[in-house]
């Protein structure tokens, strides 16, 4: 891609892009951080295991059957060969040995670990995905539209919608649906040109409804404050215990209780970025707000989000394991690392591998995410970059 020669008279170099692309620069710095590199390697291995685990343990005739009960083979230590004469054909472990031993029902721990890897992976990624989406969205709104005022009527119909939605979810269908319909009607009324704008000089009660209550920024950040008042593990435990047990509940609940940090620093980034020239330029070009927010500002504000998301995955995996341990995890027939560990605690002295194998697996994966996240932070932090 050389420019035509006549554009650059003799003696002038053509303007060159930085010799290294951003990714190359990133990789060059990243390679020097050995711990982070190890973290990345473990993460890739874990990812491959989880994906392989889905294929190897699912279906009617799985290669590794995590649910196959062999009572005559219970609590066999790792690497022990199966007693073939005691087993029906087809019940023998596919590897020829019980690689990780068997549990108190004679189920192959290796197969169960394979099955559980996917749960840990999805819990981590989905929960963090939810929290990043919510966090970035609210942070962007607070940072970009922070100075706008919220009108009383807007607050009121939002309240109506929330109350309606939660009543509906709580089982009171009649009132809930009525509130939802009323809220939506109000929403359309207030947005439509025949709505409040009809009045040239509105009567007193309309003026009251249109009155400005607080700024968008205040509203969102006070909401963050309210959410931060709940001790997070206790809140998650309460909600998970009250709702029907399922893996999706856990993901959603973890995601919806961990977005506050993201919101705070996305807002902070937005507050400084939106004053910069490139935003002014984008606005001068007549770009829509949505485009400015999501195409121009967000990519520049995303670095700290990435770091906290990586570490968030680690803590989501830990939270899931903790919930499983307390008996609120994924319901029984499905294996997760947390519930293998929590089942194994009853045999801690007779069959320590039931505790140690899942425990070490969780430790390694969480450690990998933490190291990777910290490495990312060092690389993305320009102040540290100069010093190195």
């Amino acid at each position, binding site marked *: 891609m050389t420019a035509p020669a006549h554009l650059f008279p003799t003696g002038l170099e053509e303007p060159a892009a930085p010799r290294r692309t951003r990714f190359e620069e990133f990789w060059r710095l990243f390679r020097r951080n050995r711990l982070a590199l190890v973290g990345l390697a473990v993460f890739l291995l874990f990812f491959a295991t989880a994906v392989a685990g889905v294929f190897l343990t699912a279906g009617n005739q799985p290669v590794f059957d995590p649910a196959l009960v062999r009572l005559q083979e219970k609590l066999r230590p790792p690497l022990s060969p199966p007693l073939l004469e005691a087993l029906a054909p087809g019940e023998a472990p596919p590897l020829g040995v019980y690689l990780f031993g068997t549990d108190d029902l004679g189920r192959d721990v290796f197969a169960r670990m394979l099955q559980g890897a996917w749960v840990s992976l999805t819990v981590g990624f989905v929960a963090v995905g939810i929290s990043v989406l919510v966090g970035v969205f609210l942070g962007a709104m607070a940072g970009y539209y922070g100075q706008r005022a919220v009108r009383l009527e807007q607050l009121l119909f939002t309240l109506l919608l929330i109350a309606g939605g*939660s009543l509906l979810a709580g089982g009171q269908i009649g009132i809930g649906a009525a509130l939802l319909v009323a809220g939506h009607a109000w929403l359309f009324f207030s947005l439509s040109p025949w709505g409040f704008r009809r009045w040239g000089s509105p009567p007193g009660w309309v003026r009251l409804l249109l009155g400005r209550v607080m700024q968008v920024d205040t509203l969102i950040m006070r909401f963050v404050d309210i959410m*931060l008042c709940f001790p997070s593990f206790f809140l998650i435990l309460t909600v998970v215990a009250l709702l029907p047990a399922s893996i999706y509940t856990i993901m959603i609940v973890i995601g919806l209780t961990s977005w506050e940090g993201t919101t705070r620093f996305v807002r902070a980034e937005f507050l400084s970025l939106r004053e910069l020239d490139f935003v002014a330029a984008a606005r001068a070009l007549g770009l829509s707000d949505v485009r400015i927010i999501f195409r121009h500002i967000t990519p520049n504000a995303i670095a700290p989000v990435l770091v906290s998301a990586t570490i968030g995955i680690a803590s989501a995996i830990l939270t899931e*394991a*903790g919930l499983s341990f307390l008996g609120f995890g994924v319901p029984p027939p499905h294996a997760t690392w947390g519930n293998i560990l929590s089942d194994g605690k009853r045999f801690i002295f007779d069959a320590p591998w039931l505790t140690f194998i899942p*425990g070490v697996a969780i430790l390694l994966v969480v450690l990998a995410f933490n190291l990777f996240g910290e490495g990312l932070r060092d690389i993305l932090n320009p102040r540290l970059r100069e010093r190195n």
Partner: protein
Amino acid sequence: MIAFIGRSLVQKIATLFFVSIVSFAIIHLAPGEPSQVDPLNPKFTPEMVERFRTAFHLDRPLAVQYAYFYRDLFTGRSLSWKDNQPVMQKIRERFWNSLPLFIVGTLITWTISFPVGIRSAIHRGGIYDRSATLIAYVLISIPGFFFAYILIILVVTHLKVPVVGMRTFGLWDTSWLFQTMDRLWHMLLPSALGASGGIAVLSRYVRSQMLEVEGQDYVRTAKAKGLPWEMVHYKHALRNALLPFVTMFGLILPGLIGGSVIIESIFSWPGMGRMAYEAILARDYPVILTVNFIAAVLVLIGTFVSDLLYVIVDPRIRL
């Protein structure tokens, strides 16, 4: 100053009000009801269920239930639905069990993290720093209950440290000194466990604060004018690095309730976390809500205290 205190008090009370609404809504809108906890129990005839619902106002609209609950909470009359004990009394008992664990854990955390973090920062990149970093990451990443079981195996097979409960059973009529030692002995493992995560996080934080300050110009100046080594690190650098930690005294308050559920249930420690866990299992709404309310109050007091401390220690901050 007074204006700041007044303003933040109003703000915190408003926050608390919304917290009370949100937590009440979360609990009551979840599907199922406490009257259905034990549907297979033959003693639970529909009439009984109806009587319970009336007695606990469960048949009233949510807003009325909310008013009833917080009226009872503030007049100290709210009763646990599980055993009809006054909630505040239950919490008080459990609080006195949790408090020593919390205090000892916090002391261990703070006394270990600072030397470790400071040393790591001073010898940055050395073997000590690198191994401390790795250990810190392992401690952050290890699931608490797994770590607890490793320690239990270790302790039960090699050392003679008790792992269950708060005191030795049947040791009621021994001397005061003996009982105190017994309790301290029982506290060792749970508090060490509770502290381990804190040590990892705090020592990393101390290290990064120290590094931040060590890179400042005044530290370079102090080194350049030939001050002794200890003087530079401990007087010029450390004092300035300590600033953010003063405010953390406020922020550790909520740990009194939040972080102890798993540890207390492993060690059968009859503390607040375990009570909250049992209350959740039994759908004992008044206890859950009260614990939640107290936790929120602690968080708010904590942030308030830390704001105040910030103003006191850092003269650059004006309100």
